[in-house]
């Protein structure tokens, strides 16, 4: 593993340890959960250059599937987690297989349409999903794995540790995917699809696979989110949430998967602080989105990169 990867992981682990000192457990948990959802979008959006506006659907399918199981059966966490990941992964595979053959603008609109399909399906299927009120009465499982002693996840600190371990573990796996031959093929297809095919890669298959993997990890994030407030709100599936996830990836920086958790953190903290200032905080948020797109396309990581030479110069001036 390269040095920059090690540094990145070190910083991520350090932030996870420090976060509860600065934020409430629930805010810190939410931040990590969206960090995972954004990182799960990264193989598709960042590496593959496929601008999926259907990520909220994957997140939501995971959350509703896992959440329904937790609301109706006292199972160890493993099962709702697997069920949410599998359901979202399967849907992502179907969605990917239908969407990746289309050119960019068609692709965007199709992923968007899939997102709306899921939204309205959940909205209409009141008996199971709770419709517009969201899926309520979700219980955090009493045990993590079968045959193991129980753990009280209703204690905020326990829940945070659980989220931190799962998110960090998933992030390592996503990092591996980004650095894998699959990641290289996705990148190759983004740069020059015709050449990648002429070399002998089935790029549609690679892109569908990226969607499937993105679905699995989005689904896991969704299940964690369903536990966070003991409710799965329908807003989590709305297309605005897809836009938010894309924005998180972008604001962190498209160039690296480490941008995704940074983007999620910026987004959640921005949302929390703006909402204290003004009821109409989404208006301010919209202005920030516009500002970032116009002036900071490389995201926060690029901002760091731009500042680094200046910092070095400053520290160099101090040195003898």
């Amino acid at each position, binding site marked *: 593993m390269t040095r920059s990867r090690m540094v990145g992981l070190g910083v991520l682990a350090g932030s996870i340890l420090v976060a509860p000192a600065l934020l409430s457990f629930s805010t810190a948990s939410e931040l990590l959960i969206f960090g995972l959802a954004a990182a799960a979008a990264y193989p598709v959006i960042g590496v593959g250059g496929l601008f999926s506006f259907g990520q909220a659907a994957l997140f939501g399918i995971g959350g509703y599937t896992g959440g329904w199981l937790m609301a109706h059966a006292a199972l160890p966490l493993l099962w709702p987690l697997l069920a949410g990941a599998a359901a979202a992964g399967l849907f992502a595979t179907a969605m990917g297989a239908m969407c990746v053959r289309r050119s960019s603008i068609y692709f965007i609109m199709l992923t968007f349409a899939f997102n709306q399909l899921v939204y309205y399906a959940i909205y209409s299927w009141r008996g199971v999903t709770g419709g517009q009120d969201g899926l309520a009465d979700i219980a955090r499982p009493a045990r993590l794995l079968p045959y193991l002693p129980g753990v009280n996840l209703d204690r905020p600190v326990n829940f945070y540790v659980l989220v931190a371990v799962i998110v960090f573990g998933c992030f390592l796996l996503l990092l591996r995917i980004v*650095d*894998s*031959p699959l990641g290289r093929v996705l*990148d190759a297809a983004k*740069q020059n699809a015709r050449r990648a095919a002429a*070399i002998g890669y*089935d790029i549609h298959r690679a892109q569908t696979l990226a969607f499937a993997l993105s679905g699995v990890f989005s689904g896991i994030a969704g299940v964690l989110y369903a536990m966070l407030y003991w409710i799965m709100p329908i807003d989590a599936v709305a297309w605005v949430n897809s836009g938010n996830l894309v924005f998180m990836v972008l604001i962190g920086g498209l160039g690296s998967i480490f941008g995704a958790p940074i983007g999620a953190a910026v987004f959640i903290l921005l949302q929390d602080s703006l909402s204290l200032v003004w009821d109409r905080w989404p208006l301010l948020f919209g202005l920030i989105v516009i500002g970032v797109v116009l002036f900071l396309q490389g995201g926060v990581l690029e901002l760091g990169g731009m500042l680094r030479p200046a910092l070095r110069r400053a520290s160099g001036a101090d040195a003898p």
Partner: protein
Amino acid sequence: MTAPLLSVSRLVMNFGGHRAVDGVSLDIDSGKLVCILGPNGAGKTTLFNLLTKDLRPTSGSIRFDGSDVTALPPHAVARLGIGRSYQITSIFPAWSVEDNVWIAAYRHAHGGRLVFGRRAAFYRAVAPRIAGLLDLVGLTKLRGVSAGALSYGDQRLLEIAITLATGPRLILLDEPTSGLSQEETGRVGGLIRTLAASTTVVMIEHKMDVVMEISDRLVVMDRGRVIADGSPAAVAADAAVKAAYFGT
């Protein structure tokens, strides 16, 4: 007499009302270096696009190494061993020279498997092959440079290295020397001769000195048809070719 490596039969490609390739039949034997000549719009590049399946032919058939490949997608014919360079340089500009060749060498070594459980860096066994290819095209010193930052001539050479790394049994080169200096043309010409010694090469080329010197056989196309086919000397003497191509 062995079967030809590539056998094209009555291939037709229509674009709307325009017939870009009009009933081309062609057999290419293993181990030969064949040049395709013809004025602009003769259908040469379209023929290549049909062979690599970037285009689907309107009618006709293509057999490669004894099997019908007419209906296969591009990646499948590439895996069977048809490699290609493009008229307009086609590389991965964001990557280093070495990574450009890696993606092709990995495909050749591992059959295009989309592994996601291991890092790409794990597959180091292809490194010597990459080094050998970079040495062959003379890009060893530039292996860490971003491909987008290379000079035009070096990009052409990189493109050939990518094509070779896929281990093709039939290499299609679309104007490999276009836009190159005299010196670079000489280098590429020498490279092609080296390749032709061990594999089958079909190239589209305009530079007559290069063509006459290195090819075993010339095929001349005009308006979508093959108008002459034979040894360089015989084709150069052909009256129809003179009329269409040399303009005399």
